[in-house]
């Protein structure tokens, strides 16, 4: 570096920083860093607030009922006997139903999008699925009440007359019930599951595909033997996250499930989920024990979805993106 260049530089720039400047810089940096760290910490604090608030407010119920709460089958606000099993049942079964419907479909769509569709069609379908993802829950519920419920009600008598020997298909044609809720949930979790599955398939390196094709596989054989097994954990993560969504979904479910906290073997009988029970009864619980029980249910739901999400994130973090397909 010549002296000429040095003078050039010193002319275009102010004098080298004085000690005060440096200190100010340090103070400014430390301050800014502190502020952002505080904001980041507040995200953790938020997580803590969830736990603390719900634990504090559900303490009365936890102490009163103990473990019998999760196995009790009676939900009787009159005599203050609260058993959560029926709503846990309703939550789990409606979500599993949703998965049963949504897993194969989302897998099919993802395979189509990553392996089969041309660029143009892929864009369109991805766009449509994004719209599906942006529809609010309450709108699904509205559609559920006025379109899906009458549809299920009109189909059910046929199903009952064909398969009525199975307890699964018995019961009066309410229209509102477990199956309707399962279908709505399936539609609602489809977008997130599709986009996560698609991401997982994208992450499969191309040499996997090329190697398989070089062995004269058909496209389907390639998908089945080289693509799907390669990123199982990503696909499982998508399913787990979809399950987490379905368990916690509130409005659409409460509008179509029939809100009856009983355990039934029929797909068509009304049921109740944790989230929809809270939505219906939270503002109205008249005793403090009742309220506390509802918050305990919230805590239970929180715990379950937290575990699922933690599990799914751990799986997702394992996905390697190296060498994946270009978008």
């Amino acid at each position, binding site marked *: 570096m010549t002296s000429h260049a040095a003078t050039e530089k010193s002319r275009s720039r102010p004098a080298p920083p004085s000690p005060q400047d440096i200190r100010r810089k340090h103070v400014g940096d430390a301050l800014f860093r502190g502020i952002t760290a505080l904001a980041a910490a507040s995200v953790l604090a938020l997580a803590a607030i969830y736990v603390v608030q*719900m634990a504090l407010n559900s303490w009365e119920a936890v102490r009163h009922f103990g473990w019998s709460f999760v196995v009790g089958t009676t939900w009787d606000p009159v005599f203050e006997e609260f058993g959560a099993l029926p709503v846990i049942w309703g939550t789990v079964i409606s979500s599993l139903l949703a998965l049963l419907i949504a897993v194969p479909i989302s897998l099919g769509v993802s395979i189509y999008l990553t392996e089969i569709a041309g660029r143009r069609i892929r864009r369109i379908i991805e766009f449509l699925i994004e719209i599906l993802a942006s529809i609010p829950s309450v709108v699904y519920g*509205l559609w559920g009440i006025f379109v899906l419920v009458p549809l299920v009600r009109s189909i059910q008598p046929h199903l009952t007359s064909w398969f009525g020997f199975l307890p699964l298909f018995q019961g009066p044609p309410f229209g509102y019930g477990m199956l309707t809720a399962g279908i709505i949930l399936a539609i609602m979790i489809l977008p997130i599951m599709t986009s996560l599955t698609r991401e997982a398939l994208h992450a499969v390196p191309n040499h996997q595909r090329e190697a398989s094709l070089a062995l004269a596989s058909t496209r389907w054989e390639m998908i089945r033997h080289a693509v799907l097994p390669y990123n199982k954990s990503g696909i499982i993560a998508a399913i787990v996250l979809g399950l987490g969504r379905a368990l916690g979904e509130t409005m659409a479910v409460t509008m179509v499930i029939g809100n009856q906290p009983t355990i039934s073997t029929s797909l068509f009988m009304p049921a109740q989920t944790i989230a929809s029970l809270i939505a219906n009864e939270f503002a109205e619980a008249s005793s403090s024990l009742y309220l506390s029980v509802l918050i305990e249910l919230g805590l239970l739901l929180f715990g379950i979805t937290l575990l699922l999400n933690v599990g799914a994130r751990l799986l997702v973090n394992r996905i390697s993106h190296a060498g994946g397909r270009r978008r």
Partner: protein
Amino acid sequence: MSKTNHSAARSRKRRQLADRLMSGLTMVCVAISVIPLVSILGYLIYKGAGAINWDFLTKLPAPVGASGGGMANSIVGTGIVVGLAVLIGVPIGVLAGVYLAEYGRQSRLGRSVRFFADVMQGIPSIVVGIVAYTLVVLPMQRFSAIAGAVALAMILIPFVCRTTEEALAATPHDLREAGLALGQPQWRVTLGIVMRAARNALVTGIMLAAARISGETAPLLFTALNNRFWHSGIDQPISTLTVQVYTYAIAPFDDWNAQAWSGALVLIAIIFVLNVVARTAARSKYVERS
């Protein structure tokens, strides 16, 4: 020899058939997943567009039994609650995202914040409502727009935190080095250079977050409640589109059912616009650079 050839040809045919069948099945899956969308949007327009008129957009709800009236207060209410939630949540979320991208990439705080921000996006919104009720409504002793906004902000913060981090992480590292080489303090480099470069992506993240919370109902049921009139302050109950659509959807009155569809259509339109704006902002990044 010819026999093996024959069987090989047959098995190839079978394999090709399986290939076609499965390709066809994936297309069926696509069709199945598009049907509900078409049905929902179709019904929204078919049932909702008819009842949207000037009154609907500018009047208060009519009392039970009287026809007419509108959802003006709910439309404005949604704007206010979402706006407040953005005001509360965006600064925290963005700053937290800045920390993750600029300071805490590998630190223990950074890693745990990143992890919890991801996990918290999966928390059921009804749970958020419960917590906001115990946190704001009970101490304030009233349902209020603020309480609703706090609930929505609790959903927004983890979301914005992560989109901000991603936006900043996507900016070239050279920018930071260039800024620092000019003797700028790091905070000014971050604010003035990195965030400016990532501006569009930041706006996209915030708009997507706003779109998402605009559609929330469950957290508002027992925080913002609802209001038949214009709200008389942000510390008072307020009507929102989602809660109003819910109330009207489950009601037995034809007028209300029809208005529920119209309200839902307006809601979808708002969310759609926010989404389009977000995508436009995301795209303009490349336009500007070229």
